[in-house]
């Protein structure tokens, strides 16, 4: 053994000499990721400590799980959990199949130019900023002046304000999300469909399968690996409803259903400067998401051999 170690040592030195240019190319990226991604992870200990302005991040007194129990015993805890879970589960249940269905439909369009035009159009909303998206909802859904708002109040014969009602917050949030992203998210499925060998369709045709059967038995099975990977990733986000859109859609009237963990962390932490308490809430959120991701990945690995790692 002792004779191997110096050899190994020499080999890594040689490799370092050989690869030093590769290291130079990657070190800036490593430095930026350490500073902005890993140092905040070190700062997570704030969730277990008091924050001391004069002594910095790690200087405050150790409080253990104090801030976690403060959160769990908070009267808002169950409301926050319920709102967060309802918004993200509805987004997953309705939003996850939408791009798959869209890809299956687009894949049936055989005219090349029509397909390209449709794709160009459905990808486009993805590039609209969240602020503009919510602004668009505001002008279109406004009950007095918005074209959709007027249409809906005529159809429903009510004077409902879709933007300021506890009943319509989740549907408006989810449907607009599908409108904006289903097209873009279908790209990855279309790519998977384009790898299906045409001979499979020919063989199916000879066996007398109709187009519907081909979708069921050729297209959908071809998508399964992609579906599983993306589903695991989306489960890792169960408590991660994007902060920005919820925050921008919030108003005092829909707040009972629109206050979620991330917006609460922002208000408690950034606006009221309760750093330790809000760090604890944030960590609570991250850990649950991480747990879901790992569990889903484990289930999938056991049952289908498809996994993220």
């Amino acid at each position, binding site marked *: 053994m002792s004779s191997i170690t110096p050899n190994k040592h020499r080999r890594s030195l040689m490799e370092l000499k050989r*690869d030093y*240019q*590769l290291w130079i*190319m*990657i070190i*800036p*990226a*490593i430095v*930026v*990721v350490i*500073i*902005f*991604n890993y140092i*905040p*992870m*070190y*700062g997570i200990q*704030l969730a277990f400590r008091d924050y001391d302005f004069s002594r*910095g*991040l790690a200087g405050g007194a150790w409080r253990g799980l104090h801030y976690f129990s403060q959160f769990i015993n908070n009267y808002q805890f169950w409301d926050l959990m319920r709102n967060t879970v309802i918004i993200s589960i509805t987004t997953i249940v309705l939003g996850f199949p939408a791009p798959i269905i869209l890809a299956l*439909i687009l894949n*049936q369009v055989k005219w090349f130019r029509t397909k390209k035009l*449709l794709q160009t159009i*459905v990808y*486009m909303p993805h*590039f*609209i*900023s969240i*602020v*503009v998206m*919510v*602004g*668009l909802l*505001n*002008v*279109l859904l*406004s009950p*007095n*002046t918005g*074209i959709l708002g*007027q249409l809906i109040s005529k159809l429903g014969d009510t004077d409902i304000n879709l933007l300021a009602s506890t009943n319509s917050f989740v549907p408006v949030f989810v449907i607009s999300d599908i409108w904006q992203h289903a*097209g873009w998210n279908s*790209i*990855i499925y*279309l*790519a998977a469909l384009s790898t299906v060998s045409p001979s499979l369709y020919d063989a199916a045709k000879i066996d007398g399968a*109709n*187009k*519907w059967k081909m979708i069921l038995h050729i297209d959908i099975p071809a998508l399964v690996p*992609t579906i599983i*990977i993306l589903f695991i990733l989306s489960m890792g986000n169960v408590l991660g409803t994007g902060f920005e859109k919820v925050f*921008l859609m919030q108003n005092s009237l829909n707040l009972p259903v629109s206050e979620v963990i991330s917006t609460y*962390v*922002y208000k408690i*932490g950034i606006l009221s400067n309760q750093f330790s308490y809000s*760090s604890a809430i*944030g960590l609570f*959120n991250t850990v649950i998401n*991480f747990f879901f*991701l790992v569990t889903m990945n484990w289930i999938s690995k056991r049952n289908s051999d498809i996994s993220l790692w």
Partner: protein
Amino acid sequence: MQATTNHKRSTGEILFDISIIILCVLIFLIVAYPLYFVIIASVSDQTLVSTGKVTLFPRGISFFGYEQIFQDMRIWIGYKNTVIYTVLGTMFNLLLTIPAAYTLSRQEFRARRFLMFFFVFTLFFNGGLIPTYILMKDLSLTNSMWVFILPFAVNVFNLIIARTFFEASLPKEIYESAALDGCTHFKFFFYIAIPLSKSVISVIALYYLVAHWNDFFTGLIYIHSNDLQPLQIILRDILLSNQVFSQGGGSGGSAGGYAQQFADQVKYGVIIVSTIPILIVYPFIQKYFEKGVMIGSIKG
């Protein structure tokens, strides 16, 4: 195609094709109409728009909204800031991401597996808002333009897309034979890798560019001074907080009425003016999307 097989199409098949056509038309209308409506509403008489009389074509042409926008200094300061942040930010992103992706794509580079894990881990776990906020404060990045440019300069998804592209298009053998002729990694990267990967670099540049242009969060959390605010914060004030007119007058709010109609026209106009740069870049890069995403989807 039908002629060559020369068999009669069954009713079921015809019905299937018809339903596909109907679905496609519906999808087209659902996605395109709201976008089209914003355009025609921004140049129409607002009394007609708010009573639902503008549906297919602009009516009672009026450029009031755009006149207001061109006079509003807030929008132009925001525009200028966002252009600076986007250009510098995207350049910095590419400068870090593309070389790092090249290194990670070299199979003989032994640390690549560990470093890949080092990057990917940040996708699944992070410090959270508050520790990040305190870090930015300690680095004096709050209320500074650099907070838009330096942090999170490497997007792991983009890194994977570029790495997978380099792996597929620059096999080890090409580098090895070039290395025999004395080609170093630097030379190989500049003279062979970069010219070959224009498509993937443009896709990644577009992703970064859009992310910077649409960034609202950074301004909200880290910037207090109005002179540094990006366009998206100004847009929030105008579109959502209803501070349409910079003088403060005319924000009709829920009172509705006359002022609200004019406010709406400004809003339609602002949506267009703020989204134009992206719509200009979009067609040039669109053809690379599928390529980019397809490469990215291959698990490495």
